């Protein structure tokens, strides 16, 4: 079988793609397949998967390869809410509105697979994100800069002296000295 693109070399790469329930088959030689993939033959990069038969287009969505049979072309899809067409999506790489996610769902899934490596969001309940609580206490700690800690210890020292608790006062005095040494270095 000859390569459908250059019609010169033997087709050694055969691909099948299903878009909007329409099955399409491509038969290409290695050189044409490589050129169509932007030279990314056999690359493991999520951005240039060999078996994602898209032309390098201006967006992640690219363009489908020229169809062997024009009658098999799928009908034009347009978002009922914002009016974005499949063509606009391929040109801009941008969805028009939240409804577009449902309108172009079939087109999006391979893009997610390629660009994100996943096709489903992980929902984490708000109250099960312990690191947010951690960061809150961490930031509070940070606000307690050494100078303000020294201030706090000094006031504790004053009250300790006032109530004649000299053991506690000595401990506080040493702690203040330690902190002062730390901040001066």
């Amino acid at each position, binding site marked *: 079988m000859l390569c459908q693109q250059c019609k010169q070399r033997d087709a050694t790469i055969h691909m099948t793609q299903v878009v909007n329930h329409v099955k399409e088959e491509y038969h290409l030689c290695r050189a044409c397949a490589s050129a169509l993939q932007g030279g990314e033959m056999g690359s*493991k*990069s*999520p*951005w240039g998967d060999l078996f994602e038969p898209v032309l390098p287009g201006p967006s*992640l969505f690219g363009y489908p390869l020229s169809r062997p049979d024009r009658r098999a072309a799928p009908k034009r899809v347009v978002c009922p*809410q*914002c009016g*974005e067409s499949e063509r606009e999506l391929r040109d*801009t*790489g*941008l*969805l*028009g*509105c*939240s409804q577009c*996610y449902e309108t172009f769902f079939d087109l*999006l899934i391979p*893009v*997610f697979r390629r*660009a*994100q*490596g*996943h*096709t*489903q*969001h*992980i*929902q*984490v309940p*708000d109250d099960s*994100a312990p*690191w*947010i609580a*951690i*960061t*809150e206490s*961490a*930031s509070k700690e*940070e606000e307690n800069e050494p100078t303000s800690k020294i201030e706090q210890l000094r006031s504790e020292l004053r009250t300790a002296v006032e109530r004649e608790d000299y053991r506690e006062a000595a401990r506080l005095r040493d702690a203040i000295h330690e902190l002062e040494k730390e901040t001066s270095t």
Partner: protein
Amino acid sequence: MTWYLKEGPESDVVISSRVRLARNLNDVSFPWRLSPVELENVRDRVTNAFRDVVCNAGSERPVVVELDTLGEIESCALAEKRIISRAMLKDTRGKSLLLYPGESDGILVNEEDHLRLYSVGAGLCLFKTAGCVIKCAADMEKRLSFAKSDRLGYLTACPTNTGTGMRASAMLHVPGLIRAGVIKRLAERLTKAGYALRGAEGEGSEAYGDMIQLSNQVTLGVSEEQILTDLDRLVRDVAEEERKARRALYENDPPALEDEIGRAKGKLLFSRLMTTEEAMRLLSLVRLGRELELPEMPSFSTLQELFIGIGEGVLQQAAGKPLDPRSRDEERARRIREALRPST
């Protein structure tokens, strides 16, 4: 003190951390499909919600900057401070910047998405900045209904942001890795692993001043916590590699590197005309001198002040008038001399 003048964790390599969340209103098309009137409408709704949040917190008055009313110099200065992207300046219709008191948190309205909430912090502090921005987003979500689905999470204009809408990044000073010639290889490896390595001003920018940005690319199918944990570990690894590269660079020929750094400081101290490009190159060397703990190097905050303060926008803003390129070079050299002059 402004956040970028502070020294944060790992600040010998990691200059700053930034986390942004993309969110959209659920009943309006994404910004690129809206008419000017519709963009205004979105802007008003988001701004009102924002005012409500800030007033409720009982803090100072919020700052609302309508980008389409800003002059060229002011917009340029915002880009140099990395508050907005240069791409955002190409078309400013209906775009706004909402700043929380303290300037480290804000919301960009009507960029690619209706809301881009961000938070920045000094050094490596991804979890702390993420905590701030997630709280801001939660406050806004109590007042606005965001576009999201059970299967795909938050819905965004570009499918590269769908899911968490979270892009976390860290800015790193990597003169060692750049001189070792490994950046390109590192960038390729990171791309394959789902991360991006970019220049200091984001997408498409050069790594000037030997600064690079590392960020996550995957936003779908991973939790916010996982994104931050993975990036944090990656940044620590790259920072460690950078430290090794610096040590190797120094130990290879200490007088040669000390000479180069010393000459850079000399030029900065005595020049009368200085382009941004030259200043960034020399400041990076002096920063390296400080990071290698060489004597008589400027403080971290002085270096940061100059790194942010010598771009053409900030420079002209400080001068209070437009300056032609030559006058800018003169003014830049003057500011650098003054900042670095030993305080006697």
